[in-house]
């Protein structure tokens, strides 16, 4: 798998189809982010399914000038890049995605519904996995769900990892950091932190689960995002990353009607 990916990247660099490959290089025993400029550099190329490579891409994008960048993408990475491109934060014309399917085991770990990109260059597509926690949360009463999240959010120590590592949480100056909405009153932060974070990414979340992986206290944010994605689908018939149209939340009713009136 890793070798296949390196091979494709080598070809892309050799043929000058791209100017760099954003990926990981084994340094010691640590996969380290790097932009490979030469095919010869790819000797210690590494692929890691859960690395937030799109967040990295987004962070370095303003510095890339006219460079064309290739990267190995999983299903979630691909969708994230599409969401960013929709907002013209990155430019698809300068991005070459090398598609890689995730293993069954990885799909299970991620509770991932779509563990493969549209164009799969490497690996074979496996079936998606339902998020059982999200399902059971749906079955709970409102009070039970409230208590569940109350207990989870109590642990939060406001590291902002959920937004720092999120590929589609794009604001430079985050509203969560602004004491206006989430009072700066130490930890745990008020529920406003979690509500606003989820609300802000709701219409662009592609369910990579990086928020949950980044959480030092393991709040199951992925399941929350799963529920929210279902909501958006029900309300607007919209799926972030899959739909090419604009987010329905910002358009008029004519452009994207509400499927279901809230009353």
């Amino acid at each position, binding site marked *: 798998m890793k070798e296949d990916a390196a091979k494709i990247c080598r070809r892309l660099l050799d043929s000058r189809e791209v100017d760099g490959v954003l990926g990981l290089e084994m340094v010691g025993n640590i996969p380290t982010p790097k932009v490979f400029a030469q095919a010869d550099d790819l000797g210690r190329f590494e692929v890691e399914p859960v690395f937030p490579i799109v967040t990295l891409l987004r962070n370095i994008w*303003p510095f890339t000038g006219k460079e064309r960048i290739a990267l190995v993408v999983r299903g979630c990475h691909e969708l994230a890049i599409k969401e960013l491109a929709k*907002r*013209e*934060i990155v430019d698809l014309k300068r991005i070459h995605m090398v598609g890689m399917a995730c293993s069954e085991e990885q799909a299970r770990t991620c509770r991932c519904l779509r563990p493969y990109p549209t164009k799969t260059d490497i690996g074979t597509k496996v079936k998606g996995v339902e998020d059982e926690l999200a399902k059971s949360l749906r079955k709970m009463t409102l009070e039970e769900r409230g208590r569940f999240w109350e207990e989870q959010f109590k642990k939060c120590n406001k590291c902002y990892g959920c937004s720092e590592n999120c590929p589609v949480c*794009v*604001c*430079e*100056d*985050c*509203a969560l950091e*602004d004491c*206006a*909405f989430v009072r700066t009153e130490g930890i745990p932060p008020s529920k406003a932190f979690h509500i606003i974070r989820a609300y*802000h990414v709701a219409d662009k979340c592609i369910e990579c689960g990086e928020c949950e992986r980044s959480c030092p206290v393991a709040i199951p944010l992925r399941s929350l995002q799963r529920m929210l994605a279902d909501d958006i689908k029900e309300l607007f018939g919209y799926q972030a990353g899959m739909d090419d149209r*604009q*987010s329905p*939340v*910002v*358009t*008029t009713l004519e452009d994207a009607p509400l499927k279901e009136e809230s009353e």
Partner: protein
Amino acid sequence: MEPRIGVFICHCGSNIANTVDVEEVVRYASTLPDVVHADHNMYSCSEDGVGSIKAKIKEKGIDRVVVAACTPRTHEPLFRNACEAAGINRYLFEFVNIREHCSWIHMKERELATEKAKRLVRMGVAKVALLTPQEESESPVVKSAAVIGGGVSGMTAAISLADQGFETHLIEKGSELGGLVKDLGALFPSESTPLEFVKTMRDETAASGVRIHLSSEIKDIQGYIGNFDVTISENGKEEKFKVGVVITATGADELKPVGEYGYGRYPNVITQSELEKKLAKGERVGNTVMIQCVGARQPGREYCSRICCMTAIKNAGRILALEPKSRVVVVHRDIMSYNARNEALYRKSMEDGVTYLRYTLEDKPRVEGRDRAEKITLREETLDEDIALPFDTLVLSTPLVPNPDNGKLQKMLKVPLDRDGFFLEAHVKLRPVEFATDGVFICGCARWPSDVPECISQAGAAAAKASIPLRAGKVRTEAITAEVDETTCTGCGNCIATCAYGAISIVEVEGMRVARVNLAQCKGCGACVGSCHNGSIQQRGFTEKQLISMIDCLTEGD
């Protein structure tokens, strides 16, 4: 510098003071942060009241003012002017409504109403402390106009503007000017024929110097008040010009009621406009039944077209004038003979022998016939029995329906349509010939079915309104607009998608994409603010900080 806030609580005679303990509110207000003066007036809006506010501003060095009284919707300008007169920026003022929103609606709860008034004042004080001075700015206006639609309305408006000396473009889709009127048989109650009338107008239009574009289609309109770029295709040839204002006079069409009452099946079932053509040629129609509200005021098209009743009255009279022996019956659901002149005409029509009978939507007349339609049967309300009305000709009064091009034009002009597809004015009473979008005006049947005199007066009004910015050569832009903090904006485009006025665009600043607001286009609704995730776009006078300071007044203890 710490703000120096003055708070003025109004008794409004007994209107407020009977329910709210004004002195207590004053006492409370004086304890609030940064309040250097709190006072009360019997009538703040009176000359004395305003005078004392001005005097206190100067005496106490007040730099921000809160007035707690009635509603800003009526009195805000007065107090803003007072602030300005006393030397402080008119936007450093906050109005607290303790009459309509407090004393008048909690009349039996003096204690709770007083507590509420205190909280409302506290909210106002919190906000005013954070307000910043605003300036209305100016932007230039190109001294020319475009009028879209060459009917009576369009011609009238164009003539009026051209006569005032403004370069005026009149853009007509068809090959000649005249709109619906040119097809009418008679103008009522005027003596002149429609043809004469239209010809006179065409001549006037030409004489006034209006640049007439026939067989022309609007390709594109971009820009904002004072600075629209219009692209048309005139006989297939593209032409571009700049105008400062646009008047929409696209008119309307008569509904062809195919399938209703045998229309399209029987040759003697015709519409009013078809009748007019026959009458114009002097054709005889014999005994006639007219049915009103065909295809109107019913599910699917609920509006009243208003002018059809008078058309029916007019044409009934003309039939009788041509064929005094004919019997004319008008079957209607209500007669819309609005205004005194029309009411008199209706009365006269009855006196002249036209019969008026009512039907209901639930019980519509039924048409019978073989090759031709022969009679209708209807339930007569007062007799409460079916009666049959035989006829030679059945005339259907159908409503005017919106111009099908409205949808296209609406997007270019960024103006709204109502649910029926007519253009929607800014306010039915206060701004009847304008759109919410500045610099775009409306008249005639594009808004609503109107008769000729109405079209003419609306067109005159629209032209008069449009001439204001043209004459000034500049417009003051809203002070309450949105602004972008370009250092934090990520250029995600949420605000652009949200703005109904197309006032926001992406620009590149030091290699970063950021949103920017065109102040001349911004109407200050703040919808963009609601869509911005990190507060990079803020609405002047309603910033996040200002609104949150008010919210905090409710979440913190008293």
